[in-house]
């Protein structure tokens, strides 16, 4: 699949160039550079407070870095607000679930389609012409591509707030996918899930990355080293706002500095094997 501006797999899709982000005098990011290629799963790991979520917020536009540049598909996007970046194809999930808990699963996912709605108030109110056609298209997309993929048929009409945590995480992924993103940022999608839910979620992430229909590039922030080392193409290690390394999982596991700063001497990442 060809991405925005005719990108091919292997081209740089997202680039952070010497990004600095300060909160007062605290440097959350002290000159971070990242290069995400199209089609890969690029994980960001690091101890708590390393600045991983800040980095995601910079990419998605919630924070504006004081210094440095962010490029998406060759285009500098520093000054774009989040909704413009969403239109460009950047979608995300949150570390703490940010769903509308009083709405149904279906409504939450539909909300993700908002940026793809073209018809106006008039035709929407009359449900005629473009609005009708559009709604049927969106319905098909949600049902065939998202609900079927994430296996949430049984909870379609359930209120999100009533669902167990693991399913809520799945719904959040569904909403992010409704944007039909080119780049998907997943902020700790596995936190708080049980073993079975982790396996399911890892499978969905791989599906979205590999299935011909999707081929979404993924930036994954995660603490579960077993999954990170299993599914990532590259792993970026962050510590107190500084990059330690950015390499393949095999190399990262061998890196003495990473072991000292984060992984510890034990083979933490082999827990799931």
């Amino acid at each position: 699949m060809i991405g925005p501006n005719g990108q091919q797999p292997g081209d740089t899709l997202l680039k952070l160039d010497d990004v600095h982000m300060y909160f007062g005098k605290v440097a959350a990011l002290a000159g971070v550079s990242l290069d995400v290629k199209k089609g890969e799963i690029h994980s960001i790991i690091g101890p708590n407070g390393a600045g991983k979520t800040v980095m995601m917020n910079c990419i998605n536009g919630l924070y504006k870095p004081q210094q440095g540049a962010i490029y998406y598909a060759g285009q500098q996007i520093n000054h774009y607000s989040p909704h413009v970046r969403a239109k460009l194809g950047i979608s995300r999930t949150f570390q703490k679930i940010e769903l509308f808990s009083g709405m149904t699963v279906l409504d939450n996912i539909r909300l993700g389609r908002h940026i793809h709605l073209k018809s106006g108030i008039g035709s929407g109110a009359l449900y005629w012409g473009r609005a009708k056609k559009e709604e049927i298209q969106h319905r098909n997309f949600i049902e065939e591509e998202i609900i079927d993929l994430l296996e949430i048929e049984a909870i379609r009409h359930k209120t999100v707030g009533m669902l167990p945590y693991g399913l809520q995480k799945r719904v959040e992924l569904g909403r992010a996918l409704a944007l039909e993103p080119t780049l998907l940022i997943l902020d700790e999608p596995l936190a708080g899930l049980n073993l079975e839910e982790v396996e399911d979620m890892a499978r969905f992430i791989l599906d979205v990355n590999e299935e011909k229909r999707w081929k979404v590039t993924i930036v994954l922030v995660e603490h579960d080293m077993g999954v990170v080392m299993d599914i990532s193409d590259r792993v970026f290690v962050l510590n107190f706002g500084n990059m330690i390394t950015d390499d393949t999982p095999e190399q990262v596991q061998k890196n003495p500095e990473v072991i000292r700063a984060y992984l510890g001497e034990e083979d933490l990442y082999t827990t799931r094997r």
Partner: protein
Amino acid sequence: MSAKDAPQIPRDLTIPKLFLEKCKRYGKKKVAMREKEFGIWRPITWEDYYNNVKYLSLGMIKLGLKRGDKVAMIGDNRPEGLWAEMATLCAGGIAVWLFQDCLMEEVKYIIDHSDSKFLVGEGQEEVDKGLSIFDECPKLERIIWDDPKGMRNYDQTCLVSIAEAQKLGREMEREHPGLFEETAQQGTGDDICLLFYTSGTTALPKGALLSHHNMLSMGAALMAIDPCTEADDFVSYLPFAWIGEQMMSISCGLQVGFTINFPEEPEVAQENIREIGPHVMFAPPRMYEQWTRTVQVKYLDSTWLKRKIYSLSTKVGYHVANLKFDKKSVPVHWVILNWLAYILMQKKLRDHLGLSRIRNAYTGGAAMGPDHFRFFHALGVNLKQIYGQTEIAGISVVHRTGDIKFDTVGTPIPGTEIDITDDGEIIAKSPSVFLGYYKNPDATEKTLVDGWLYSGDKGFIDEDGHLVVFDRSKDVMTLRDGRPFSPQYLETRLKFSPYIQDAWVIGDKREYIVAVMCIDYTVTGKWADEKKLNYTSYPELSQKPEVYELVRSQIMEANKDLPTVARIHKFVNLYKEFDPDDDELTRTRKLRRAFVEDRYRQIVDALYADTDTVHIDTVIKYEDGREAHIITDLRVEFVPLEEDK
């Protein structure tokens, strides 16, 4: 009813021949099946059905399927499953169905024992199962699958998708036009069509061979009693590996031509049934037990007014149902009251259960408690008991409308003779009696004698000519006073309580009767929440003194009308539920007594010893493969026995 009333099925008629005839008759005009997919019910006409079966069948022939070859199938209920079965039969093959939740060893045993050449699986999960045993089953050549999800990285040469197989079928059609019809028209009713593995409460599964004539004559006989029409709807959601589902979807479905509906996912089957509102259904007792439990729990949850309406309406319902059971006419004022009860309660409740249009609801495959039975009749649901086994194509005895006794299973279907041997064993003779067990002449010899099928069940025929099934011969217990007693009877009574998931009654030739109880985690858990009892897990909840008290009260309720010697005197709450994955239940959820007796010997010994606890130190396995070490003390408690009045 004698043999001459039976509907006659021509000896050379086969399922494929009937299939061709129906497809030709209905074509594009009629919907053969529906599947709920992507949130919408999608119709499949008889023409679509025909084309899918045709090209799949030709594809299988192209891949090397010969007449008499076996094709094993596994997967949820879905159109592709039925197409695969029909395609196999049309190519002259024999269909072997596996339960969806079969463990690896069972899959391997059945595929190997049946000499299956192909395995048709639904998606990645089934393909994985197939691939992991592929090298150990030398006769298995191909694995055919239909759901592409997760299959992108599989490139083994033995894998073929249904779409690819159908493409091969189209090529075959170009090379040999008319081959499909020619093959489907071959054969006679005496050819084997199904090789069905019985769940087996005691030993390894046995493969029963059923002919086309077996299946068709059984379906015709059932339809002669309770006719269905072409316009009827049926929901197929129970495993195809269960003979009852084959009986409805294939034997009856094909002869009548009613529409078969497939739910979206097994988890939403109940909602989907409600959307369809089927006219006929056949389910094992556990489904009905589940429904009763749901209603009882919702009742406890609802408001005062609703509870009042419910209890008044059920009172009326029970009274009218009892009059009907006694074959007495219902007085006018009761008819009016019942109509009111219908408007106020029954109608809505039936709608919620998906029973609003039901004409005949059948249950079979295991014993059903009289309480459940009366419950559904009080709702105005025409629930009937079916008795039969895989070896007689599913059914030999059934209740007739207007002649229902809840402690019997009814009278033989047309063409079937029932007799009781001197030992009290039920034997049957009919055109549906199977041909024998596959590769097991010893078992065949024991089961089939002079055309009579020896069921292994004890029973008798009552004064109205109804068959009463007492229990499996080997399960019948002898009480302290020498009388025979059926543990199943007590167990089904206990299961009427919503708090009890399973019960196991012991006491053959013993001083008194004891029981091992499995609480229903959801319902009892909810009860505990309301009582503000803290618990974290099933083992902990089951051992709470309050829960023991609750279970004791439920046992006393079941003990009520029984003679003292037949009452449960001591019981234990088990730390887990019985599970087919642990071999404690069969796939159709029948208790494997010999197995549990061996496994829980310690508990049984404690129940008959002078002790009030039993120490358990064991390992249990969770569904995701994890193991947990359980060390716990189970309490042994008494149930007070009153003397006989």
